[in-house]
């Protein structure tokens, strides 16, 4: 049990997909305008990661090595389509807000990266916990970035205003703000790591 817990935990801090591995940054930056969008994207990506990790761990012995990438892409795309259709049916507003970034989960490097680096070598259970950990780590990173951007860029959290008189820095809500926040956060985590090593 402890082993599974470790598999789960490593995706959240030690191998966080966003801050440590720097994978899947396109959707992270694009949708992190508000916390609601961030959580929506996080859940969709976690679902795809879980599904594809399990299926790929199951079929790893059947798929010939030379054509494995196209096979994995088909598996991933199937789960993305499921996520996209579910989102369209139950939460059209979120689907509109996330726009083209929902189908683009299919080219999110985290998903294919985990399939290549982990699921094709490990057991189904290990892959399940790895996918879950990576998904949760991705979601937490999205929440952190989108909270900073929504708080300073619009003065709200979950769309609720927090202050009566607060002049928000609109630039953080714009694309350049996203790049600035991720750059500074990556630098900050690097700094923490260097302090720890000393």
């Amino acid at each position, binding site marked *: 049990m402890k082993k599974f817990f470790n598999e789960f935990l490593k995706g959240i801090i030690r191998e966080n997909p966003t801050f440590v591995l*720097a994978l899947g940054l396109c959707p992270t930056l694009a949708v992190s305008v508000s916390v609601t969008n961030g959580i929506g994207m996080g859940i969709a990506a976690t679902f795809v990661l879980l599904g594809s990790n399990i299926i790929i761990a199951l079929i790893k012995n059947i798929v010939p090595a030379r054509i494995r990438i196209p096979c994995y*892409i088909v598996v991933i795309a199937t789960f993305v389509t499921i996520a996209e259709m579910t989102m369209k049916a139950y939460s059209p507003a979120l689907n509109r807000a996330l726009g083209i970034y929902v189908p*683009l989960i299919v*080219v999110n490097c985290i998903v294919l990266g985990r399939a290549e680096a982990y699921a094709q070598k490990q057991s189904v259970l290990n892959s399940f916990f790895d996918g879950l950990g990576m998904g949760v780590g991705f979601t937490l990173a999205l929440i952190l970035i989108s909270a900073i951007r929504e708080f300073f860029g619009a003065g709200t959290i979950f769309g609720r205003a927090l202050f009566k008189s607060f002049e928000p820095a609109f630039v953080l809500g714009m694309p350049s703000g996203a790049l600035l926040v991720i*750059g500074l956060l990556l630098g900050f985590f690097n700094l923490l790591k260097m302090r720890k090593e000393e």
Partner: protein
Amino acid sequence: MSAAQFLSIFISAVFIYNVILSRFLGLCSFIAISKETKPALAMSLSVVFVTTMSSIITWLIYRFLLIPFGLTYLRTISFILVIATFVQFVEMVTRKVSPAMYRFFGIYLPLITVNCAVMGVAVLNSDMFFVQGKPVAGSFVYATFQGICVGLGYTLAMLLMSGIRERLELCSIPKAVKDFPLAFIIASIMSLSFLGFNGFKF
């Protein structure tokens, strides 16, 4: 179809909604390969080629296969498969036909398979130039042109970034922000200056 329409597609794809600086598509390759100008240029040219070709192919598939058979929900799967196969095919052809070109471009081709910019422009085309399952007038030409323009926007951002980063090599930079973090901060400033093109809207 009018010249104004083409101009507006060009300006919005290259400047206002630049793939990298405003839509964040293809960010991974943008950060990873922009350290020097020469590989950045090679990568950009391959992206222009692949976005153009995949715009054409995915438009044909969407128009003549997915819509007539009511299969538009298979868009994601069919697009990514076709793009991946096409890129693999181009890689094989260049390796066979011209080893010199393969050394210059070929190594970047596998990276393009999972480049969000290529998939992004295909999805964008099917969203923009089809209204309720029907292609708008001149849809095919617009889609192809948008593919070229998105590639050009990528090239522009890539060349600017690699030029800046080549000069930065000589500066003394705090260790914590070296490489990736600094690249993002530079990209942020570039994106801020591209914001000025918003006034171009028409």
